[in-house]
């Protein structure tokens, strides 16, 4: 199927937790085959390994900036007319996005750029991330001297208030 072996959770040892179950006589014929379990279990969920903190992060790219050592990265783009926020994977695929270009957000704002827009965009982004199951996000792709400016700090405040943690847990190596 062409799946990267790291994508599966290939499990080996099967230990049966020993407890007696209450036997139901009418379904005993049906459920007798339930006990047959394959020794190797494969989980196809692509988000499983990163949610268990076992997936690989791209640790190279040490001579360039921004680095790609993350599972999900929060990127804020402030253009002349709009503010956009993206949560993307290290291969560049956007998972969740929010922008003041969308009508749902634009209609409630006086101006689609500026500090107030950034703050509200942060709140909306946090809500969408939590709905998508993304609780930890890497926010290091901000230029250091721009991190101090009001709009980015308000955006960060909005995201934190929404409940998303702005640093990713360390990968479990052993």
């Amino acid at each position, binding site marked *: 199927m062409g799946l990267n072996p790291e994508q599966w959770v290939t499990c080996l040892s099967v230990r049966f937790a020993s407890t007696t179950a209450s036997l139901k006589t009418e379904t005993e014929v049906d459920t007798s085959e339930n006990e*047959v379990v394959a020794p190797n279990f494969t989980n196809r969920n692509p988000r499983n390994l990163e949610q268990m903190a076992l997936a690989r992060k791209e640790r190279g790219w040490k001579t360039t900036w921004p680095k790609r050592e993350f599972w999900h990265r929060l990127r804020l783009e402030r253009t002349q007319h709009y503010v956009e926020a993206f949560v993307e994977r290290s291969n560049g695929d956007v998972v*969740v996005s929010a922008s003041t270009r969308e009508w749902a957000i634009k209609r409630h704002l006086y101006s689609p750029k500026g500090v107030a827009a950034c703050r509200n965009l942060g709140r909306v982004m946090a809500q969408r991330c939590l709905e998508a199951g993304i609780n930890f996000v890497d926010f290091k792709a901000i230029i250091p001297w721009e991190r101090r400016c009001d709009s980015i700090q308000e955006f960060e405040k909005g995201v934190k208030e929404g409940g998303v943690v702005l640093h990713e847990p360390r990968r479990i190596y052993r």
Partner: protein
Amino acid sequence: MVAPLLSTALRGARGGRSFGTAAVLWKRAAPLGPMPNEDVDVGNLEALQRYRSFARYLRQAERAGREPCWWNTYRKHTDPPAEPQADIGLPRERLSRAKELKERKRILRENHRNAEMERAARLRTVLIPLDEVRAEWERTSGPFHKQRVAKHCGVFRDLFKGAAFTPWVALRVQYSQEDEHLVPVYYGNMVTPSEASSPPAVSYEADKGSLWTLLLTNPDGHLREADSEYLHWLVTNIPGSDIQAGKEMCHYLPPFPAMGTGYHRFIFLLFKQQGPIDFSQDARPAPCYSLKMRTFSTFDFYRKHKDAMTPAGLAFFQCQWDNSVTSTFHQLLNMREPVFEFVRPPPYHPPQVKFPRHQPLRYLDRYRDTQEPTYGIY
């Protein structure tokens, strides 16, 4: 590193020892596409527009990094090439765009004239109502965002073998707990098996007289085969949005992700039927706790009924083991609970060389079959 002459390299390959140079250019040919920065006029650098700020340069660099290129990159090597996806969903209903734009422009003009909004924006006190924003989002760009998240969670790849659809119908699924607390299911959030032990309250907008099918499947949890799913709930021929009035082909089974297997996806699919369909082949007996009968393939199910129904709504959640799963295995499924352990893939080592250069003593440990480390024993 100077590339060796073609003749010297050929001599090496034909006769005795071969060349060990990394970049042996066997044949020089023209590049397969335009080189980057080819359009920059190097003779007249003063006339070029400068970036003048790092932020502008970074935005340009990130955009250029996302563009497709003709040379081999790590991204192309790891990601499979995107195949053209078949669209199996409902056709989009496009309302009058001109009227919509006129209405939106009117609202924006009113906002600009509103002094209170201007003051709130200037003093940075404005807080937009998130639930109204979400309601409007569900109507406008919600389906596209949900499709994007579902694609990244591998829903279309595993259920429909690549064919995707846009969930135009907003499916609202909520699990109610004992203390009147509601746990909603969005597109990928975490729900525990104890919260999902009873059937949820499902609601969606439906015209009177339309028929729907609701399906809950788990593509990750199969204990025997990796490619098939478990059917947890199937309700068919639902009139309007009244789930109780629909015919329950397979009763609700609470989620049972085994311990140690991590997070499983549980996907709610809502199909719009064109007319009443006979699902007697997919009917399961009333209390069905046999995993063999619950083994299911959404692809085959949809292929059987694809002329009469189309997928219209999507919601899924991620679920991990907790204590209620043990009671599900023991009481409902009448089996001993399987427990799994994560096994890491073995680390890759290049083929062993007789005289390794600049390698420590533990080089030998990497290729020995037994575990006898030479490091850390003193």
